[in-house]
């Protein structure tokens, strides 16, 4: 029992912690970011992943959707949305967005391997996940407030100062729980994906790790 992966199998990637700016860490002690690099991009979902989505659709009922609001992890994201000035009934939390789609369309619809991996991981864990093109990021990711004059690529105008963003060492990459900057997300040419889990107060660390592991497992096949 050496802990080494069996011959011919790639080692399990490990997640690393992102940074939170000091004033945000003081304001939101539970806020955290965890990232994990996967050495592949997206693409078409294989049949097994589509079947897994369908099984997940069948497992997920209306009663679960109704009761989701007061389950600990979805509740924690709803509360955090309120804390940062968002209305979770207008701008849905990631898990509620997927659940709503499941209810409207009758199932989780397969779009691409990455989208399916995120859907499976978010629904199973409740944790908010994002994905970025790892080759278009410099340094470690973190969460901070914007300075005056900062922009999000591909969006007109400047971001209001104090907007919460996911940023790398150089620039904002995405709004926290919002739009991703142009060309910073995963596209057809992406060869390395950086999965990012956003943790808020009330979400256990184990759930964050599980979410990243689930998404990685689906992506790696």
């Amino acid at each position: 029992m050496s802990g080494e992966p069996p011959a011919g199998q790639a080692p399990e990637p490990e997640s690393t912690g992102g940074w939170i700016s000091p004033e945000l860490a003081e304001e939101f002690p539970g806020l955290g970011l965890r990232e994990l690099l996967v050495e592949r991009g997206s693409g078409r979902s294989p049949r097994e992943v589509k079947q897994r989505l369908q099984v997940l659709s069948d497992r997920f009922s209306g009663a679960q959707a109704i009761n989701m609001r007061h389950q600990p992890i979805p509740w924690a994201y709803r509360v955090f949305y309120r804390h940062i000035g968002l209305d979770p009934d207008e701008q849905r939390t990631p898990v509620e967005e997927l659940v709503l789609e499941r209810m409207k369309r009758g199932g989780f619809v397969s779009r691409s391997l990455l989208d399916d991996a995120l859907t499976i991981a978010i629904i199973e864990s409740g944790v908010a996940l994002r994905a970025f093109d790892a080759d278009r990021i410099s340094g470690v990711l973190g969460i901070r407030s914007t300075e005056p004059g900062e922009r999000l690529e591909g969006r007109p105008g400047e971001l209001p100062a104090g907007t919460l963003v996911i940023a790398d060492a150089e620039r904002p990459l995405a709004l926290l729980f919002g739009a991703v900057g142009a060309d910073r997300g995963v596209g057809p040419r992406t060869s390395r994906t950086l999965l990012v889990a956003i943790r808020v107060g009330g979400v256990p660390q184990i759930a964050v790790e599980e979410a990243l592991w689930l998404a990685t497992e689906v992506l790696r096949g």
Partner: protein
Amino acid sequence: MPEVLEHSEAIVEACLVEAPHEAAVETAERRAREDLRRQIGRLERSLGELFASAFPRRGFEWNVGAVGGPRVLSTGELERVRDALAVRLHDARDELARQADVEEANRALLEGMIAAPEKHRWLEISRREIGESGCGSYQSRPRLGILGMLFGWWRIRLSSGCPLAKGLRPPAPWARRAADGEEAAQAAAPRRAGAGERRAGGQAQAGPRPA
């Protein structure tokens, strides 16, 4: 230069005097924000529980509105969110209590109707009106049609339930899979469409409706 130095020293001294006060204010504000965030969390939990209890009743307003973000909210903004949540919770509780009273009255009426159908001729009470899910209804109807009407043979009939599944065909990926021979997907899709149809067709009525 000495003037500047004196001035700088004066500023430093002033800061030293004021710093503890400012720090205390900042600490107090942070504690106030923490407290408000806790209150928002509790209110959100209560609202979530009420949302689950209220289902499938309609006529509730759940949206609270956003103050704009994502950003760190000030104490005043957090207070506004807290107050809006409290008002929403209060309104929703009132509405739920009002609907529960109506349902209680309807249940009493149904009991009376079951006990004496001839006294409630043609009266129809849906399951929703007594706080039950589904789309069946109880109706006082004459046995054997016009003969029952003439002789006063009245009885309660419970309708057979929801209409048959109709609605839109399933979205393309499901249809494709069905064409590939995945019977499970083929069988599941119309049932789900039917569920949507049932919900859409099963809106709560304002009260029992005599025919």
